[in-house]
């Protein structure tokens, strides 16, 4: 296991910042760490990175206590902090080469690394000229400079345009699936989580309120998803075909409003509808799913639910 965190607690200046945080991440997995502003996500990452001394709990990285050979452990971790700063007077290529030197040299040619994050040909460009999105990409390149086994990214898609976000999504998926990296992703963007993550952990008020496999958690805690469909041609019937695991909520002009059970797979539904001659022109997700689970688990009115699933 890359990260095995049990009951992490942190007290700073007499204030309890984290209490009972759980986090379990293995290779090939992408883990979404979710929570409202100030919930303790970035602090949890700081504890994992050894920037704060743990008050209580156990933390293992790569199967060993985190404080054991901490410098050597850091060689296997790539980090993109939330506020990624650089030496603006350096060029992107020089900066990455310099930073790679701290790890004993880059595992890959710098131009290849820049190309991987969509900054190809910009190695000689001074960082001071980079836009926010380009800095985000450079921050990801910096995190990859040591070809890490564990990648920790704090809000990596902030400030990226939709195409940029999609490119970073594809990159992270390929790093996890093809190179076996474990990725800890701290984000506010539930769309990122929905698309990328195998596991999630929700932190609220310094405590893990939910942790586990995304599919299992949605099945257990979600009440399903709502979708709005527009078909190319309206069918003769006013109801959904038989054998479809969805409920028709209403019809509104050319739109069909459906509710899909938590355990059902939307892709299967679209295939079944297509097989019955329902040609779908547009699909819109309308709440439910991860968003609903997140809102429930971070509600201050509700009793937080502690659960750890493997």
């Amino acid at each position, binding site marked *: 296991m890359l990260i095995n965190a049990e009951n992490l607690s942190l007290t700073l200046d007499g204030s309890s910042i984290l209490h009972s945080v759980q986090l379990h991440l293995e290779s090939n997995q992408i883990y979404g760490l979710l929570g409202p502003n100030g919930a303790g996500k970035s602090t949890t990452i700081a504890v994992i990175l050894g*920037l704060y001394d743990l008050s209580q709990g156990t933390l293992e990285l790569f199967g060993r206590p985190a404080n054991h050979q901490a410098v050597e452990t850091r060689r296997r971790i790539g*980090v993109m*902090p939330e506020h990624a700063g650089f030496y603006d007077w350096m060029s992107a290529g020089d900066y990455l080469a310099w930073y790679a030197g701290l790890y004993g040299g880059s595992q890959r040619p710098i131009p290849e690394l820049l190309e991987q994050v969509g900054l190809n040909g910009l190695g000689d460009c001074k960082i001071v000229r980079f836009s926010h999105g380009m800095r985000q990409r450079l921050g990801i390149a910096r995190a990859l400079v040591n070809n890490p086994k564990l990648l920790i990214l704090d809000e990596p898609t902030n400030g990226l345009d939709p195409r940029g976000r999609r490119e970073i999504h594809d990159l992270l998926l390929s790093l996890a699936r093809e190179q076996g990296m474990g990725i800890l992703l701290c984000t506010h963007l539930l769309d990122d989580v929905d698309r990328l993550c195998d596991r999630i952990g929700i932190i609220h008020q310094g405590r893990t309120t939910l942790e586990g496999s995304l599919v299992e958690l949605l099945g257990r805690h979600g009440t399903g998803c709502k979708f709005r469909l527009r078909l190319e041609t309206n069918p003769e019937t006013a109801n959904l075909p038989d054998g479809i695991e969805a409920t028709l909520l209403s019809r509104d002009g050319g739109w069909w409003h459906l509710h899909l059970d938590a355990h059902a797979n939307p892709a299967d539904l679209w295939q079944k509808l297509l097989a019955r001659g329902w040609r779908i022109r547009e699909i819109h997700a309308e709440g439910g799913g991860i968003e609903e689970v997140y809102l429930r688990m971070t509600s201050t009115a509700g009793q937080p639910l502690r659960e750890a699933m493997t």
Partner: protein
Amino acid sequence: MNPIRLLAGKERLALLQNQRGLAWLLAYSIVLSALAVLLVSNNELSLLDNAQVVYMMAGTISVAGAVLAVILGSDAFAGERERGTLVPLLVAPITPTQLLAGKAVGVLTAWTVMYVLALPYLWAVGVGGQNLVQAIIYLGLFGTPVVLGFGYLAMSLSARTGSVMTSLLFSLIVLLFSASPLLIGPGLRNNVIGRGLDAVNPLSGALNTYDAVIIDSEPFTRQLPRLALVVVWLGLTFAAARWTARKPRFR
């Protein structure tokens, strides 16, 4: 490559390629030029003994070095934090001591540049007089630990407070306090309080040594207590910086 060399190289480039660093060196050169011109051409100052002129120049160089060390030291951790570049350093596979050493080499580099830059000025005001070579040697021997000590003090405050301004303010207050026995004249320095301050004040230690060696031509052996003072100062400030650099304020 050794991380200390990498960090020191970055500090050197930041100083010498950065406009602020070059502006500082330019300002320093202007101050030295103005002082040299005053010392050799002003009606009253030019009456000073040649050795006294060299002593004044050596003192000015040491204080200017300490000021630059305070500026660089204050920026060492807090400046990195404010620019968002501290966390990438802290998560890299380097120890706090290596990080501190890299920063300290940066301060030493700046001091070396200042020292080399000062040599022609010292020569200009001291050529033909007594103890010019001794002045150059003792400036290196006593000035270096004093300057580096102020750098470590500022680094310690920088890591602890996470604020460049706070670190700069406190370090400059300490520097001004250290210089105060010299500023308030010999009257106070000759009483018990003044002698006590001189005994523990590293800047006084360095300047009194310049006085003793350059003007009074005292031998090295009589400077050993003052050398011990500046070495202890360096050791204490290094220990403080090393302690705070273990867990610097990064958010």
